[in-house]
C-alpha cells in the first residue's frame, strides 16, 4: 500500500486487488438476500425507526382516538393538524397523513407561526421557546401535543417522552377536561403516565 500512496506517477487508481474487491462488493450487494429496500414490512414490527417517523405515526393515532365533536359546520372541512414553529417532522407528517380520513374528514397538515389559526390539533416542537405562552392562547376543543419536559406543567395535553430509547407519551387529564377534548380510554391505557 505504501508504494501506491507514495507513487507520484500515473499509477492506475484501482489496483488489481481493489478491482476484485469492488467486484466482490458488487456481487454481495446484488446477491445479498436481505437487501430489499422499499418492501413494506407489514408482517413484523420494525425494530428501529427514526424518532419522528414514530411520532408521526403516534400523532395519526391520537387524531383517530379523539372523539371529535360532530358539529355540522366542521364535519365537512378537513381536520387540521398544525405544527407550531419549527417543524421537526419535515415531510414525514404529510406523508403519514396523506390519504387518511377521520369521520370522513380528510386530514390536513399545516405549519403555523402564530395563534389564532384554524387548527384541530396543535403540535409544538421541543425547540419552541415560550410553550406556556402559546398554550395559554389556544382555546378549547383543540388537542395540544408537545415534546418538552415541562409541556404538561405548562398546560399541554399529550407530551412525547423518550423512555429507554422508545417514544412514549404522557397525558394530562385535567388539561383535556378543561378544553373539553375527549380521548378514547385506549389512549389512556397506552400512555406511560396519566396525570390527574
Amino acid at each position, binding site marked *: 500500500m505504501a508504494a*501506491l*500512496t*507514495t507513487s*507520484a506517477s*500515473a*499509477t*492506475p*487508481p*484501482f*489496483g488489481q486487488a*481493489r*478491482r476484485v474487491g*469492488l467486484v466482490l*462488493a*458488487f456481487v454481495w*450487494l*446484488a446477491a445479498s438476500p*436481505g*437487501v*430489499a*429496500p*422499499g*418492501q*413494506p*414490512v*407489514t408482517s413484523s*414490527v*420494525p*425494530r*428501529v*425507526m*427514526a*424518532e*419522528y*417517523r*414514530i411520532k408521526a*405515526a*403516534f400523532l*395519526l393515532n391520537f387524531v383517530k*382516538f379523539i372523539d371529535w365533536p360532530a358539529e355540522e359546520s366542521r364535519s365537512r372541512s378537513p381536520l387540521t393538524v398544525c405544527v407550531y414553529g*419549527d417543524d421537526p417532522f419535515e415531510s414525514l407528517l*404529510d*406523508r*403519514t397523513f*396523506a*390519504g*387518511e380520513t377521520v369521520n370522513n374528514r380528510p386530514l390536513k*397538515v*399545516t*405549519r403555523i407561526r402564530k395563534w389564532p389559526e384554524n387548527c384541530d390539533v396543535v403540535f409544538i416542537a421541543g*425547540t419552541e421557546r*415560550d410553550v406556556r405562552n402559546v398554550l395559554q392562547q389556544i382555546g378549547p376543543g383543540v388537542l395540544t401535543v408537545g415534546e418538552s*419536559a*415541562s409541556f404538561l406543567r405548562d398546560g399541554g395535553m399529550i407530551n412525547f417522552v*423518550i423512555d429507554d*430509547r*422508545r*417514544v*412514549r407519551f404522557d397525558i394530562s387529564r385535567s388539561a383535556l377536561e378543561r378544553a373539553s377534548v375527549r380521548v378514547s380510554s385506549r389512549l389512556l391505557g*397506552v400512555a406511560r403516565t396519566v396525570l390527574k
Partner: protein
Amino acid sequence: MTPGLQSRGAPAGIPLLADTFWTGVVVLGLLLAATARVFGQSPTDPSADPLKQLTLEQLSQIEISSVTKESVPAFKTPAAISVMTSEQIQRSGARTIPDLLRLIPGVNVAQIDSSEWAVGIRGFQGKLSRSVLVLIDGRTVYTPLFAGVYWDMQGVLLEDIARIEVIRGPGGTIWGSNAVNGVINIITKSARDTRGSFVSAGGGNVDQASLQWRYGGGSDDTSYRVYGSGFTRGPMEHPDGRNFDDWRRGSIGFRVDSRLSDRDELTIQGDAYGGEAGQRLQLSSYAPPSISAVEGEKRFNGENVMATWHRTFSPASEILFRAYFDRTDRQELNYREIRNTFDFDFIHHLTFSRHDITWGLGARTSPSHFFETVPTVLFIPPKQTYNILSAFFQDEITLVPDKLALTIGSKFEYTTFSNGNYQPSARIAWTPTSKQTAWAAVTRAVRTASEIEDGFNFSFLAQPATPLYLRLIGDGQFHPEQLIGYEAGYRNYVSKRGFIGLSLFHNRYTDLLSVESSPIVLEPSPLPAHFVLPLRLRNGVAANSTGGELSAIFDIRPWWRLRGSYSLVILDARHEPGSNDASTIGQLEGDTPRHSGVVQSTFQLPRNFDLTLAYRAVGAVPDQRVRAYSTADVRVGWRGRGPWDFEVVGQNLLQPAHVEYGGTPGPLIGIKRSFYAGIKWRH
C-alpha cells in the same frame, strides 16, 4: 457517526487516467445494481407505511434509530461528537462562526486579528487548519490551494443555522478528505422553518454596524427564503497604533425547499458575497528594497449554488444526490486566486436485518488560476485542476440488540496529487443501559497533498546583507500524511438533569509535512544575483498526540443550565530518519494550547429575560509568544411581547485586550473587549 444524510459530505474528484475505465464500469455497475433493486420495488403506496398498521402498543416498542438526523442527540454514536443547536447559537451572543466554535470541547480557536482566526481540532491549530474539514450544508469550504479554511469568507447568517455538528478525531470514513483531525459541519434551516420577515440590526465598538434581513414565504410544499447581510467591523488593539485590520462583508442568498412528491424533497440554495479586510504582510522582492512590511486590503468575493435531491423509497431506504458549483476569487497583498469547483455526491442509506448501511460516491473537479502579484510568491504551474474521486461504505452491525453495535467502513479516495488512499475505520459502541454508552474506535486517516505541496514557490529574504533568501518549494514529492487514531469515549446521563461525557484519544501521525533544507545555491537571475536556501516540502516529521475532552451539562434548576468542558492535548513531535527540518517540530508542539476550558451558564429569567455567562481559560501558545489567558462573555436577551427581541452582548470582558495568536508581522495584536447591542424583529 452518521448524523443524517443531509449533513454528510462526500467530496471527491476524478483523476481521469486510462485505467479508470474499468473502475468506472465496476462503480457504475454497483450503482445500477443498487438503484435497480430500489426502483424494482412495487411503487410505494403511502398507505403501505408499515407504521400506520401498528397498534399503539407496538409503536411504543419501536426503538429510535440513532441514524437519521434529528433523532436523539448522538447518544450512541461511537465518535466524539458535539452538536450545537440553534438555541445555543442564539443565546451565546457570538457574532461569528469561530466564536461559536470556542464553546465546543476539543476545538482550539484563536483570533489573529479582526478577520482571521486559527482554528484546530485536537491540536494543529493554524491560520489555515489543514487537517480540519469544514462543510456548510455539505458544501466543502476547505480550499485546496493552501489547504485550509478562509474563515473571513464564510458568511452564513447565524440566525439561519439549524445546528453545528463537530466530530473530533479522524472522521474520514464518511466525511471526505482532510478530515484527519475532525469535521465541522454547519447545517442551515429548511426554508419551511424560516417563513416570515426577519430583520436584525445592531452595533458596537468592534462589530460596528451589522444589518441582516430575511424574508421567507411559500406553502408547506414549496418554501423559500432570501436574505441579505452586511457588516463592518473595526480594528483590534494594535500596540503600534497601526489599525489596519478593519473588515467589511456583504452577502445575499436564497434557499428553496420543495416537496416534489410524497417521497421527494428538493433543495436549491445559493449565496453571493464580497468583502474586504485589512491585512499586514511582509513582502520580499529580489530588487531593492528587498523586504518591506505592507498594509492594505485583501479582497474576496464568490458565488455558489447547490441542488440537493433527497428521495425516500421506504423507511429502510433513502438516497441523496447533491451537486454544487462554487466560485471564489481571493486577492491578498501577495497573490490572487480564482477557483471554480464542481462537485457531485451520491449517498444511499439502507437498513436490513442487522445492518444499517451507508455508502456513497463523490466526484469533484476544481480548476484554479493563480495570479502572480509579487515575484517571490508563485505557484508552478499557475493553472492547476484539483480532482478527487471518492467512494465510501459503512455498515453499522447490531451484534447484540440494544447493547452492542459494530461499525465498520472505509473510504477510498483518488486525487490529482495522490493515488488511491483507503481510510478504514472500526468502531464499537456498547450501551449497557439506556443511560450510558461506552465506545472505542481505531481509524486510519490521511491528509492528501494540496496544491501548496505540489507547486508552491515562496521566497523570503532572511539575510538582507548577503542577500540570502529562504525558498519554500512544493515540488510534488510530498505524499499523504498518515494517522492511526485510537479513540474511546463514555457518556452517561447521571440523572434526569445531568449529563457527562468523556472522550480520550491517542493519535500516531507519520509522514507529516516538513521543510527539508538542501545546500545553498547562488541564483544569478532575476538580478541582482542572490543566494537561495531551498526548503522542500516533504514528509519528515512524526508526532503523537494524546489527550481528551471532559464535558458536562447540568440543569440545576428548570431555568438554569450549566455547561462545562475541559480539553487537553499533548503533542510530541520528532524527526523521521533523514529529516533536517528545523521549524516544524516547534510549531506542532507550540502552536496549540495544551489546556483549555469553558464554563457557560444560561438562565431563563422572569419577564422574558435570559442571561448567558461564559468564562473560558486557554493555555499558552509558546511558539506564537502568546501567554495563557482567561476571559468572559455575557449576553442579556429580552423577548418583548410583540415581534421584538433585544440583546446586549459583552465579549472578552476581563481585560481591555488580550493576545490569542501571532500570525502577522509586527507586534502581537490584542483581541479587544467588545460590546454589542442589537434588535431583532420578526413577523
